[in-house]
């Protein structure tokens, strides 16, 4: 994006919020459906000072993180195994492709049957939604390693460990990070879905409750928090991804 275009986009965003504010103040938008941005901001600042809300955010963050810390290594391990062991690949890859395409959200009730409404249930569901993305990423990453470079480094006397460190890791890193990032998006969505569907704590639980009680300013403020947090995580991972992939030709 060029500089002035960036300004236009930013101005457009600000303009939308201003329009929203004006429409509410003029009475054209019903504040009980869409409260004014100023009201939402006010609610946001108040929420940020309520310890129980911060605790709920903490619970959600913990569930997301735990699910990710389980799903990412497990998915990578499975992905590498499927890519590097021909027998396993031939046997399981069609199945994995199929499962990758199956919608995961509709299995949520099953997780409640198995784990009850609990934190382990949310973590397990997060793992379930994230796992397949990471597996596919792991397979793609291994397959992206150029065989010729492995031969070259062998010709120059690289040990197997050096081949992994000097060739495999750098060439896989951007793809691995990309799949981790996509997995994280799915993971956050999955955990929030769990919390809205049935939970005792977590920001998704509070969102559902505020919605039921028609507490719109709080509801919108929570949406803003969640959106900012998710976009932030995504952008951070994306920066790391492009740092590690600096050498990839920009198309």
């Amino acid at each position, binding site marked *: 994006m060029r500089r002035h275009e960036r300004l236009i986009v930013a101005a457009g965003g600000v303009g939308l919020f201003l329009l929203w504010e004006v429409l509410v103040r003029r009475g054209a938008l019903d504040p009980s459906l869409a409260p004014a941005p100023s009201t939402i901001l006010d609610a946001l600042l108040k929420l940020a000072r309520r310890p129980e809300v911060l605790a709920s955010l903490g619970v959600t963050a913990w569930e997301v993180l735990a699910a990710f810390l389980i799903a990412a290594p497990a998915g990578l391990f499975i992905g590498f195994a499927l890519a590097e062991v021909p027998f396993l690949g031939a046997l399981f890859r069609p199945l994995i492709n199929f499962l990758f395409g199956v919608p995961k959200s509709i299995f949520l009730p099953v997780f409640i049957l198995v784990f009850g409404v609990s934190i382990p249930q949310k973590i397990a569901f997060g793992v379930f939604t994230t796992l397949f993305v990471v597996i596919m990423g792991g397979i793609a990453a291994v397959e992206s390693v150029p065989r010729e470079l492995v031969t*070259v480094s062998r*010709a120059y006397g690289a040990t197997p460990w050096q081949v992994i460190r000097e060739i495999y890791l750098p*060439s896989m890193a951007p793809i691995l990070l990309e799949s981790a990032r996509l997995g994280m998006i799915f993971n956050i969505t999955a955990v929030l879905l769990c919390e809205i569907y049935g939970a005792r704590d977590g920001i998704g639980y509070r969102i559902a409750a505020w919605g039921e009680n028609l507490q719109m300013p709080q509801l919108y403020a929570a949406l803003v928090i969640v959106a900012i947090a998710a976009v932030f995580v995504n952008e951070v991972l994306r920066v790391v991804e492009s740092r590690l992939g600096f050498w990839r030709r920009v198309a």
Partner: protein
Amino acid sequence: MTKTLVSIHGVSHRFGADGAGVLALDGIDLEVPDGQFVAIVGPSGCGKSTLLSLVAGLRRPSSGTVFCDGERITAPMPRKVGMIFQEANLLPWLTAVDNVAFPLKLRRVSKLERRAAARDMLALTGLAGFEEKLPHQLSGGMKQRVSIARGLVQDPAVLLMDEPFASLDEQTRMLLGDELLRIWSETRKTVLFVTHSLNEAVYLADRVIVLSARPGRIVDDVAVDLPRPRTFAMTSSERFGVLKERIWQHIRQAERR
């Protein structure tokens, strides 16, 4: 008499499980004196790349032995043998200088030392000023120069080149051929140079080895008695034509069989 640097004795190579696979090379005997520039030609699929990979120690021959500088080759010996491939095969995440330094890095030479050596090699191959470029910022010819510099950086006695200019355009490849001769005359490496181009073979080499169609056998060993330094004008000389004609006859016969 200079000493023999590379000697290949009774080498045959069969791919695949014992006895079942493709016989790629059959009974190759070749002695290469120190400092000689040898071109290897032969029909496609006759085992040229296989032969180089045996000298590089990337595989072991099914039978026979390969010696380099008196030592039997069973595994890659990067300090004695440098290899340059058809594609430059640079590591895309390393700059030109770090690519050239890569073989030294594998040997845990300190960063300062290996970068200094790499810089010298880039200068030798005409790439001074491009040290910090990434591969995707270099042209095809420049990449191949980096690859040659990488082959030279450990100062190996032998340079193996597998169709190094095949993916370049005609002009770049002639320029690089002259560059290679200049580098060779400055460093006096022993070169095994695989090519499909008879012009390139005769123009560059002291000696041209002609392989038959698969399984590859040596069917001719042609001494190129053109004076050095070679010039473009020589390519249209009568002697050049005669040598090319002789090699071509063999290849045509080999293909026909």
